[in-house]
Structures are given as C-alpha cells and as structure tokens.
C-alpha cells in the first residue's frame, strides 16, 4: 500500500484546512496516511490532526521550533518520513513547503515536484500534473525515483468532510539547530490575519484602488465578509501594502470560492495566482481590462462608487 506523509500546515497554533485537503486526496487514492506536525506548543493538536484524516501523527514539539528555519524543519520531516517509510511526502502550498520540500528531496535522494495539481500512481509509477510558464501550460512529469516530495498547489485537492483517522502519536526528537543560518526575529508579523490560503473569499486591490483611502474602503468590504485581503504587485511596489499580501506567480497562489479583484487590470503574473478560484468578480473602470477575460462577473465602474454599494447590497442579503 502506498504510504503518504502529509506535512501539517499550522498557523497561530491552529491546523489549516490544506492539511485535510491533502489527507483527503491521500485516502481517496487508497493510501495509508500519516501527518508530521512541526512547531512549538502543538502537542494539543494531535486530535485535530487525526480528525483531518491521519492514522499516525509524528509530532516534533520543541521551543526551538517556534521560529521557522528550513534546516531543522527539514530534518524533522526526514525523521518522520524514515519512521513511516513514506513513499510520498506532501506539503501544502506555503512558503514553508516551498523552502523545505527541495531540501528533503535532496536529503533522501528523491525527486521533488512543486505546485502539483494532480497525481496518478499506476503500479508504483508516479506521474504528476502541474502548471508551468505562469499557468499558460500544464506539464505531465514522470517520476523515476521510488519516493516523491511534492508541494501541492492551493485548491488542487478538496477536503472530504467524511474522512477521519485515528490518534496514534509518535514523538520526534528535537532537531539540531542550524548554527550557520540563525533566525534573529520575525517582523511585520502576519499572525492574526486571515490566511489567504484558507479563506473562502479573497478580495484583492490593484492600482485602481489608488491610495490608503481606497485600501481602507475595500478592507471594509473584506471585514464584512470575513475575507482574506490580498494585493496585486502594483500596490506592493507603491509601498502601500506588504509583500506578503501579493497574489500572483511570485507571491501567493489562491483558489477561494470567490475572488474579488478591485481595480486590478489583470497582468499575466497576477492571473497566475488566482485563476484557480471558483468564482471571480472584477471591478474595473476600463472595460478592456484583461481581468474581465477571466471574470465570471464584471462590473465596469469606479470602485470608489461601486464598493459602498456592494457593501450595502451584501448587507441586505446577509441580513
């Protein structure tokens, strides 16, 4: 039986939805599942990890793991993979996954695949599908190693609410700290914000939002809806929003139920980060803006006029 180890995505001490999505896919292809949770003060998550669909939970819980550094994190993953004898090691789509997956692959001499959207296993032969060239094409890649380390693209697999697992905790020993890459501090802390990867609705602002007043206006709508708040590159380059807000080929890749693009023209690099969304609403003054080519619903108009009306109309519906 194929053994799949899923690396838990944990933010602010809470297990993120992507972990269940990956475990659901693993169960759907008939694999034996385990999860590796790596961090500080996370032992209490074991029941959540089991409920997400894992049958074994490898937990590395150590004060030194509170701040992320890729080397020690990768060592913990390798330990869990060895104990479990994992064939496949899956990361959710995150900066952590992108930094750690290639390290793990190099350490265990396995192939690494980034950003996968599908996987087939046929008599031990693994083939993956993934987008490339800013989503303009898809690639099918044949994996020639027995093991595969993969980062799964946001929204690629759906969570199955019916799955469950069983609690069977294996503690991992604390890794050696990386003395040559020492983390000093984390600034512009992203804790407490709605995670773009987990949000059902993501609202992003672009050049048409103009300034702080425009941002605040759209943020009001995001607050009404409990939506994640993102940005196009233009607003990051203008210094109006932090880089961790950027949606696109180089930033976050999101696939929410509803994506609202406010004053975003739709450069190819931005589209690469959001066209996996189920429904897209675009508001833009320019009727020829490329964003309308991918939007299910488009409002041609000034967002400074449209957003207040959107808020009112949505309030009427949601009561």
């Amino acid at each position: 039986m194929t053994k799949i180890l899923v690396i838990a995505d944990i933010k602010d001490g809470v297990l993120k939805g992507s972990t269940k999505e990956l475990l659901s896919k693993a169960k759907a292809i008939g694999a034996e599942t385990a999860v590796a949770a790596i961090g500080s003060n996370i032992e209490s998550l074991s029941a959540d990890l089991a409920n997400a669909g894992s049958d074994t939970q490898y937990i590395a819980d150590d004060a030194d793991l509170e701040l992320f550094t890729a080397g020690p994190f990768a060592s913990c993953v390798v330990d869990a993979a060895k104990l479990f004898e994992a064939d496949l090691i899956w990361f959710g789509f995150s900066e952590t996954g992108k930094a750690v997956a290639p390290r793990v692959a190099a350490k265990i001499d396995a192939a690494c695949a980034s950003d996968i959207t599908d996987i087939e296993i046929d008599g031990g032969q693994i083939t993956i599908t993934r987008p490339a060239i800013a989503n303009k094409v898809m690639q099918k890649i044949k994996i020639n190693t027995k093991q595969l380390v993969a980062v799964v693209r946001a929204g690629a697999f759906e969570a199955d609410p019916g799955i469950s697992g069983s609690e069977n905790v294996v503690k991992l020993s604390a890794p050696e700290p990386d003395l040559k890459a020492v983390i000093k501090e984390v600034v512009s802390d992203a804790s407490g914000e709605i995670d773009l990867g987990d949000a059902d609705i993501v609202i992003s602002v672009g050049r048409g939002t103009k300034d702080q007043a425009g941002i605040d206006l759209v943020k009001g709508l995001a607050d009404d809806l409990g939506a994640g708040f993102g940005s196009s590159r233009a607003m990051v380059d203008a210094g109006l929003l932090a880089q961790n807000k950027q949606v696109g080929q180089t930033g976050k890749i999101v696939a929410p139920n509803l994506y609202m693009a406010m004053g975003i023209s739709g450069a190819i690099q931005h589209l690469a980060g959001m066209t996996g969304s189920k429904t897209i609403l675009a508001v833009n003054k320019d009727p020829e803006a490329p964003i309308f080519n991918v939007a299910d619903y488009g409002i041609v108009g000034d967002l400074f006029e449209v957003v207040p009306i959107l808020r009112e109309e949505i309030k009427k519906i949601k009561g």
Partner: protein
Amino acid sequence: MKILTTIKKVVDVELNINVENGAIIEDGLQYVMNAWDENAVETAVQLKEKNKAETTLVNIGSGDDNTKIIRKGFAMGIDNAIQIDDPALENSDPSIYARIIQKVYENGEYDLIITGKQAQDTDSGQTGIILAEFLGLPCVSNIIDIEAVGDQHIKVSRLGDAGTEILELELPAVVTVSDGINEPRLPAMRGIMMAKKKKINVMDLAGLGTSWEELGGGSPQSEITEFLKSETRQAGQKFEGDAAEITAKVVDLLANEAKVI
C-alpha cells in the same frame, strides 16, 4: 567577497504559448533572462558596489539567446561569465542543474551563491535550495533584503509564512531572491559596449571536470513527458451602466447563481 550568480534563459511569458501534440510550439517564441535572475544579478552588483566583491555568473546552455543574456549580465555590471555548453544538457531536471553549479562552485572559491527564487518557465523553485543541500551550505530562500556583516556573515530578510524573517548566515552560503529585493537596473550604453568585448568562459562537461554519467544524467529523477494546454477561463457576464443597478444585479448573481456569498 566572491559572488556566484546563476542566470537562465526562459521563454518570454508575456507571449502566447501554444501546445500541439504534447509539445510546446517553439515557432515565434522569444527568450529572455529569467526575471528573478535579473534580481539575482542586481543583488550581486549592488553587493559589489558596497563591499568590493568580485562577481561571476554561470549560465547553462548554448546559442545566441544564452549569449544575449550573458552579455546583459555583463552590461549590468557582472565581472566574469562561465557558460556550460554541452549537447547532453537538453531537458535536464533541477537536480542535474544543481550538480553542475556545484561543480562550478567547487572549481572556484566563492563566498556567496545568489539565484533567482524560481524560473519563469518551470516555476519550480528548487535548484538553488537543492544546490545548497548538495554543498552542505546554509541557505535562505525567497529573500527581499541582504547586507554583508563583516567578511564572514550576511544578514537577510525572508518573506515567510509568519511574516518577514530576519536571519544571519555564515558564509559561504546560498540565497534565492524574490523580485521584491530590488529593481534590476537598465544597463547604460557604456556597459552595453563594454559587455560586447568581455570574454565568456565557455566549457563543456569535460572542461568542467565532470561527465553526463557522473551528474546522474542517464537516470534523471523526473522527466517531462507531455505538455497540455491549460484550461482557460471564459469571460463571463460584464455589466456596464448605472452603478447602483448593475452592482445590485451582480450581488444577486453572486448570492443566487454562483452561491458564493
């Protein structure tokens, strides 16, 4: 400080890319330096300007398009260029590229390797990190700031899941850069003229002191078997006119047709 930076030729992503019979149609495509590698070159040149570094770029490939991007690297201020040109290298996987750069590193004495965080054609983001692992060097990916701390260390800012992470690395080290780190300069005319005269140190795998077999080329870890067209979204309903009226209409559709609010 001796800095090695990597540059890759990639297809220009602004152009339409068509797929037929499982392969990309090459006709009409144009090639440019990977945008994140431009950031890597800029990072190297800025470090040189501040800290008297010697900068070398390495490129794997052949043909005019590769020569063009190497010349651009020179024009931006890179001192030396190494090109690994060997017919065996078509369609290599990230680990083979990493093994080649490992050899280049071992043949020189470098303090810092700077790569782009990913290439615009594959979007994989693996080579720099795997390289560091092969070399046993400390590595931080996705950095948006870098400064030298004395001769033996660098301080970097990394865009991570928890926020902006500040790390101090012991040299030698590997970093991969995000586009947020800088705005790559447009080469000045003088730089472009000088770049034409500079020598590119071209070598094949034997010249590098390795072979296709030693790099694991006979048994790649992965192989692209097929390209497929991406599913493209269709434009939906676009409304123009009275803002109050069309906005109310769209909210109704979001609630009752798409059922997403």
